[in-house]
C-alpha cells in the first residue's frame, strides 16, 4: 500500500487539494486507451496515464479510482484540476514515463 504523501518526496507534483496527501492506494493500472482501462482497471485504485483530459477523470470516477498520476506531463490545464477537486480525485503529475513510474513504485516497495 502507498499513500500520496509517499510520492511527493519522489518528485511527483500534487495538483489537487493538499488535504489529500493521506489518500492511500493498493493497486495501480497503467493505460492510455480508455475502453481498455474500463475493461481492465476494475480493481485498481490508482491510474497511471499520459492522458491529461477530463475523460480520464470521468473514467476514474466510474471505476472508483482515487488517484490519477499523469505521466510524461509538462503542464496541466486548470480545468482538469478544478474538475478533479470537484470529484475529490487526487491528481499528481510527473515528467516520468508510465513504465518508469511503476518500476519506481516497485523499487520503493510502494506496490
Amino acid at each position, binding site marked *: 500500500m502507498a499513500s500520496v504523501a509517499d510520492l511527493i518526496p519522489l518528485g511527483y507534483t500534487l495538483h489537487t487539494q493538499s488535504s489529500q496527501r493521506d489518500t492511500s492506494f493498493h493497486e495501480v493500472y497503467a493505460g492510455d486507451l480508455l475502453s481498455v482501462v474500463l475493461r481492465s482497471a476494475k480493481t485498481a485504485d490508482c491510474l497511471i496515464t499520459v492522458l491529461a483530459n477530463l475523460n480520464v477523470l470521468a473514467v476514474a*470516477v466510474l471505476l472508483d479510482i482515487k488517484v490519477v498520476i499523469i505521466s510524461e506531463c509538462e503542464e496541466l490545464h486548470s*480545468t482538469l484540476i478544478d474538475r478533479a477537486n470537484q470529484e475529490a480525485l487526487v491528481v499528481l503529475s510527473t515528467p516520468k514515463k508510465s513504465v518508469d513510474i511503476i518500476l519506481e513504485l516497485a523499487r520503493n516497495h510502494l506496490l
Partner: protein
Amino acid sequence: MNSDSYKRFIIQPNDYFNAGSASSEIKKMLRSMKLSPHLIKRISVAAYEAEINIVIHSYGGCVDFKRVNNTIYLQFSDTGPGIEDIELAMQPGYSTANETSRLNGFGAGMGLVNIKKSCDSMTLISDPNGTILKLQFHITEETDG
C-alpha cells in the same frame, strides 16, 4: 418489490467536456438504490461506453434510465448517421473514431465489446436515421447490495 424509476439524460455530440456526465448521474442513482459495487461498475462501464459512442459518432441523442422491479433498463438513442456494418462494429479493435477522439483516449475499438460483456441483454439496431441500443441488467441476490 421496488418502485419504478425513470430518468432521461441528453447527450450532446462532440461534447468532450461533459462526456460521461450522464453515466455519472446514472451511477449516483444506482448507488442510491444500494446495488452491489460490482453491478454498479458493470452498468457504469456500459453506460459510459455507450454515452461516449453518442458523443463521438452521432448527431446527438439521449439515454433513458429505467428500473422495473429487479431489472435496470438503459436505452441509448441517437439521430444518426447510424452504424454502417453492425457485425464489423462488434469486432474487437474495429474503430471509426476520428483523430480528436483518439487524442482524448478513445478509439480502441472496444466500446461495443465492453458493453456486451457488461450487460445481461443487448439489442442494437441502426440505420442512417439513427441508432438504438437497449441494455438490460438483472439484479439478483448476488448483485443486490
